[in-house]
């Protein structure tokens, strides 16, 4: 089946940031996103997510340009004060027009 290369950005962040991240990711040009509940540990440790509960893992499949915009945005807005990581992967999608 014909597939097209695309990029998947994964952002793992304290759950409190969910609504904000969705808004920001869409502003950068993402057409969709998928979120799963997660928990974990890293180098920052303490966060304020008692009542919000754990982390979220936000994944969004986007073009190269949007991927870059999202990483920039996360780095600028969230890296300093929040427990957040972000990374990029190559994927091959069907129906590429859904993601562009």
């Amino acid at each position, binding site marked *: 089946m014909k597939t097209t290369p695309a990029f998947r950005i994964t952002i793992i962040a304290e759950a*409190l940031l969910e609504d904000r991240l969705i808004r920001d990711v869409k502003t950068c040009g993402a057409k969709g996103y998928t979120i799963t509940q997660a928990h974990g540990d890293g180098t920052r440790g*303490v966060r*304020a997510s*008692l*009542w919000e*509960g*754990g982390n979220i893992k936000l994944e969004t499949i986007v073009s190269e340009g949007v991927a870059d915009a999202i990483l920039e945005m996360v780095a600028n807005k969230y890296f300093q*004060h929040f427990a957040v990581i972000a990374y990029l992967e190559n994927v091959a999608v069907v129906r590429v027009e859904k993601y562009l």
Partner: protein
Amino acid sequence: MDALELLRLNLLSPMVLAFVLGLVAVWVKSDLKLPEQLYTVLSIYLLFAIGLKGGGELSVTSFAVFWKPLLATLILGVSIPLVAYQILLRLGRLSIVDAAAIAAHYGSVSAVTFTAALSFAQAQNIELEGFMPALLAALEVPGIVVALLLARASLNPNSSQSAHSGMGEVWRELFTGRSLFVLLGGLVIGWLSGKAGLEQVKPFFVDPFKGALTLFLLEMGMVAASRLRDFLKVGGFLTAFAIVMPIINGSVGVVLGHFAGLSVGGSFVLGAMAGSASYIAGPAAIRVALPQANPAYYLGMSLGVTFPFNLSLGIPLYYAVASALGARV
């Protein structure tokens, strides 16, 4: 009944013991884990139930009886963060943002401490005003707003720190935050549907309330234990603050309640509210409005130190103050 006996009765209530069991679970590394969703559901259940009952009472309360206690509550909500902020800044030498963040938590209120105080009153057959939950709602927001305004006034408006969110967003966040929203919603529903409406849902929202609180405190014990661990790296001054400040606030709350015309039970509960520190609305708002503040401080103090202190020693203490004051008159 003397003070020691009250203390004993409080410490041996199923709720306090459940909290201790939660602490122990973490300390012995038990693999006991309550699902996160239970925490969410119980929080909402407790807040909504408090609201419902309070609303039912409000529907039969005249504003003439109510306005003075309400005013006393608002005074507490505004003055506690002002004082706390200065102490933290000058004596504690904290940064502006950390001082404001902690002040916000102590200026606001803990619904569970409130609830534990109510349970204590009920178990000791202490009468009190039914409209206290409305005061709980009134005390939740002002302290947070005052502390944020303090921070805003002191921070360089051009620094990157203040860019994070406008005060408008904070207001919205506070009033639509789930904790106040559910509590207010419960109050309005209780008020509109009145005592007859409440009667219909009593076997769900009233009768099992204390048992649900017991389960919730088991979970809170587990959370508090891990918060305490984070916090212990922090040290002396803040720990002292987290115990002394509640005692002061609580006593002032009792006195103000007394002069606002509340009964001994009512002044006691207002004192417990004033002495408590927020850990639902507070952290949610602060994390957004002052993300640069260290959560280990404000969560460690409110949840790891002040809450256990109030639950065990604070509540009987505030009651002792209230009944001493009541006896004097």
